[in-house]
């Protein structure tokens, strides 16, 4: 066991998987020689050479499209996009090919590939560096999307993603890249893709979150510890496939549901969760489900971001309101 940051756990997992499987390759803009702008891939090129760890031209369609070809021809590509806001020029490959090659070829070609990208706000960044774009992946059939909120899950989910024979999009909550450390086993292990984690059991309110907002949620819950509210906290952790079962079962117990996410409100993951909670636990609901999200506006530049990002205080406020609703 070693203690690692979330970023450290990703680096360690990439190294471990590259060691175990010679077909794993890691690449992206600046991902090779310098180890990425966040240094997530630091040290890998030195260890595994330029063929397996390499810098690409600035060309997201080529990064993702070449991944399709590599995966078809015997590699397990792990592509890095520098920021999730720069996935757009490569989105064509994601939606029209990566999500579809298995189905299109009726199983002849599968795509064991991972697409990593840092996402999310609250880091005083420039435009297009702060978005939370879960919906754009979770809405596309054929894709999987996972988001760790802890170093332990970061390793387990990444290991599972690399071993998956289908494409997995792996969001990295950059706000908490180095926020805290956790014990992470040295040996290989997987966290099942498609399984949410009940972080804390409770009986009054179900609160679901993930990624960097999981931290805010936990802070919110902590701040409410003197209130008489028993909160069940779920880390959704894999957005697609969505583990509605765990969420629905929880709501059946609590009767109250709140989701907290960074993405904008309209058609954010919260919308889908509420629909599934309706479909699975409608008559258990004692109050209307609550979405704590960013508003439907463009992420502001840093001097306005405080009006946009949700935080522990806001989440706590809404949990309290929901719990006290009669």
């Amino acid at each position, binding site marked *: 066991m070693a203690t690692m940051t979330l970023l450290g756990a990703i680096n360690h997992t990439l190294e471990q998987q590259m060691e175990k499987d010679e*077909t794993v*390759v890691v690449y992206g803009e600046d991902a090779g020689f310098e180890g990425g702008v966040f240094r997530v891939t630091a040290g890998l090129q030195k260890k595994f050479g330029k*063929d*397996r760890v*390499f810098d*690409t*031209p600035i*060309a997201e*369609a*080529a990064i*993702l*499209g*070449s*991944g*399709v*070809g*590599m*995966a*078809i*021809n*015997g*590699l397990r*590509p792990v592509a890095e996009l520098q920021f999730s806001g720069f996935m757009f*020029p490569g989105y*064509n*490959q994601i939606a*029209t*090919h990566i999500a579809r*090659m*298995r*189905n*299109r*070829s*009726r*199983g*002849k*070609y*599968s795509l064991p590939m991972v697409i990593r990208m840092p996402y999310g706000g609250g880091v005083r960044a420039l435009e297009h560096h702060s978005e939370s774009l879960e919906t754009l992946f979770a809405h596309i*059939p*054929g894709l999987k999307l996972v988001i760790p909120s802890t170093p332990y899950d970061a390793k387990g989910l990444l290991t599972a993603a690399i071993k*998956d*024979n*289908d494409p997995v999009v792996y969001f990295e909550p950059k706000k908490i890249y180095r926020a805290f450390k956790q014990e992470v086993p040295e040996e290989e292990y997987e966290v099942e893709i*498609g399984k949410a984690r009940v972080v804390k059991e409770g009986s009054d309110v179900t609160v679901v979150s993930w990624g960097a907002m999981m931290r805010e949620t936990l802070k919110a819950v902590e701040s409410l510890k003197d209130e008489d509210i028993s909160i069940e906290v779920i880390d959704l952790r894999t957005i697609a*496939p*969505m*583990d*509605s*079962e765990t969420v629905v079962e929880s709501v059946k117990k609590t009767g109250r549901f709140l989701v907290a996410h960074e993405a904008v409100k309209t058609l954010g993951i919260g919308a889908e969760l509420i629909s599934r909670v309706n479909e699975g636990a409608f008559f258990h609901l004692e109050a209307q489900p609550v979405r704590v999200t960013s508003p439907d506006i463009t992420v502001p530049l840093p001097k306005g971001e405080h009006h946009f990002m949700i935080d522990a205080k806001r989440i706590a406020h809404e949990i309290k309101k929901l719990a006290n609703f009669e």
Partner: protein
Amino acid sequence: MFFEKYDPLKKEMFSVLDKDGKVINKEEEPDIDNDTLLHMYKTMVLARVADIKALQYQRQGRMLTFAPVQGQEAAQIGPMAASDKKDWLVPAFREAAAMLYKGATLKQNYLYWFGNERGSHFDEGVNILPVNVPIGSQINHAAGIAYASKILKKGEVVFTYIGDGGTSHGEFHEGVNFGGVYDLPMITIIQNNQYAISTPRAQATKADTLAQKAIAYGIPGILVDGNDVLAMYRVSQEALKRARAGEGPTLIEAFTYRLGPHTTSDDPSIYRKDEEVEEWKQKDPVDRFRKYLTNKKLWNKDKEEALQKELKKVVADTFKEVEKTGQYELDEVYDYNYETMPKDLKKQKEDYLNYLKESEGE
């Protein structure tokens, strides 16, 4: 040595045969054994016959719209004949002839344009990617396959096709450039059939030739008579040599013409003059190659008649087989989206089956 002789800026066109099938460039006439020559020819004719029949079937409402290949057979058969079995074909959407030569079956081909994904499940060891609809995106797939071939030392070379119109797309740029950066074993063939649906080649780009776009990527580019199967073979041979030697990609502009409509939904008479089509019928790549073979005494009228008869039957029989498959089953639709179907999708499938049961007779 070979490519250095051709300056794409000069607009010279590489060719071996004239339009009557006579060799006009003896020193570059490729040395191909007779069996291969005949196989090339027969595949060209198969593609042609299949195409003509498919147009008929489509007009009768028995097939989907599709992208006819007529007129472009040489640009597709030459490169495939020059390649090895292990080499890859990454098509756009008008490469029926190339696919047939490379090992896709006529049944698969028809099944696809009949509207069934099974048509893209090629046989084991047949290195073809499915028909690719989003223009340009296939070039990046080809680059990735080539990258894997290179670092896994597989010795495979990747052929990929795109149209003249497709060269204006960003993905073309990114893919060909990517190939250049890593010296990948990748050969990009632009079939310049002079139109992108109704849009003439001049509206796609101001460049004088499309071959000259190679200069932007620091790789060789060559303009070839795309209706001359031997020229296409010869140039591919040299491009393959480069690729196998680790010298990197090549860009080939095959100057050709689509004799038919863009797809069966298209009416080319809106944007093309009859005379132009007539003129290009005189340069028909199949006719030219047949004359070459006839001159070589490898072919004659009787053989042609027999072949036509045989292929028409093969094609008709195949279509019958395909047509029998009809609409396909529910499992096909659901079961190939993931290796293991996620729980929520399983639930959706069950719900749908329930609905089918509940609603029977409604």
